[in-house]
């Protein structure tokens, strides 16, 4: 069975603008979701941010978080994806 871990990866793609991290971080803080790592890069000309967060004490489940962040994304004209860590572990490692 897959190891149902508690980490989730949030990927943000779009044009750089003031307040992206702040907007997402405040949603996460409100839900008691801990940010473990943040990194930024440019992918095919787009601003790209990757966040690894821990959901262990979260008041939201992954589906709720995904809904909230994707509507925030629409508001800010960004594409925000929320994905459980296992998709990356499975794709890139034989566990």
């Amino acid at each position, binding site marked *: *069975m897959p190891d149902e871990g508690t980490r989730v990866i949030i990927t943000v793609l779009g044009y750089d603008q003031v307040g992206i991290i702040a907007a997402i971080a405040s949603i996460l803080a409100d839900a008691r979701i801990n940010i473990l790592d943040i990194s930024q890069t440019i992918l095919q000309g787009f601003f790209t941010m990757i966040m690894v967060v821990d959901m262990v004490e979260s008041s939201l489940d992954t589906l709720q978080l995904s809904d909230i962040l994707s509507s925030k994304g629409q508001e800010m004209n960004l594409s925000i994806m929320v994905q459980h860590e296992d*998709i*990356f572990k*499975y*794709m890139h490692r034989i566990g």
Partner: protein
Amino acid sequence: MSFGITKEEILETVTMVQVEKLDIRTITMGINIQDCRGNDGKATGIKIYDKIVKSASNLVKVGEDIEKEYGIPIINKRISVTPVSMIADGLNAEDMVTIGRYLDQAAAEVGVNFLGGFSALVHKGFTRGDLALIQAIPEVLASTARVCSSINVATTKAGINMDAVSQMGVIIKQSAEKTADRDGLACAKLVIFCNAAEDNPFMAGAFHGVGEPECTINVGVSGPGVVLNAVKKHPDMELGQLANVIKNTAFKITRTGELVARVASQRLGVPFGIVDLSLAPTPAIGDSVADILESMGLEKAGAHGTTACLAMLNDAVKKGGAMASSYVGGLSGAFIPVSEDQGMINAVKAGALSLEKLEAMTCVCSVGLDMIAIPGDTPAEIISAIIADEAAIGMINRKTTAVRIIPVPGKNVGDWVEFGGLLGHAPIMAVNRFSPARFIQRKGRIPAPIHSLNN
């Protein structure tokens, strides 16, 4: 990053999903309905309906949850059942039609777009149930939206049942005529097989084989777009190395399928059956198997060299996929449906791809002549002969082959046909008009082939 996966790997996954259209093509729940027999069509239909609704009520919800949690689109949630001719043996064609309608209602109730298993296995001969079911096919496919039918007319061990081949030519014509107002759509839901796979999750040919458990989850992965981009990055690479690139990519695609299959099976409390490694195109631009062949160096799919490219592609996909999943099965190969693959459509339009070349390609890839529209006035014997040729390829090469062909009423070469959605659109292809009628009218069985002296 802090969990052992690099930033580059995360971005690669995100690119595969967002840009290259990686998706899970189908989660298919196989359900045994052998315990659903009633006294007549209605009683049997009600029992089957109840069992499907009970077993699959959560299927769509679980699929949608997985889709969101892992950020990977799951295009179809589907159901396959035990071949209906076995459950309903002894009933008549009218009863079979009734059962078909209950299957359609059950599929609608649980929210799946297709349900497979209105099927019969007749490679060595017919039971009375098989004959009744085959007789009911045109009416069932014309009057339902979701029911898919498949008939296995040949195997490597039994040979080819030419009585069935002859009959299926007529059934295909009748199915097309009954849906003449929809360009013969019924035929898009009917597959004629040689060596049918019992755990195939892909429609229209899915059914729940007799060796299968009570209930099982089979997953079909996809990803021609991902393979295409990987091949495009290496325009001049030597073929051995290119095979490695394809294997690597197929591995990643299949791992995604493995994860989805495991999570779905755990949440539904149903055993994990297999992951089907097929490269399955969709009508979306860039999601095409023909484009991969062209990126390997062909001007157009269908050019000389196509069969060799496809053989290498298919084999590399299997090698990479087999390492990524604990249970591989189903059809596992490249699908080349014409109407569902924009690159194939373009190749036909350009005059590069003929029915004969498609037939040659099926010697080395998975399915067969798939979603091919032909003139509506094509005689039943020619359709039967096309089925016989495909069955012969499957029988001799010990592989699955199939025919899903649509003689579109009132249309001719040069016309177009629009099926809509995942079934796509296609140009009508030319068929060799010389008559095989006397061969088809002989009927009987083509004996099983010898298994040594393999040349």
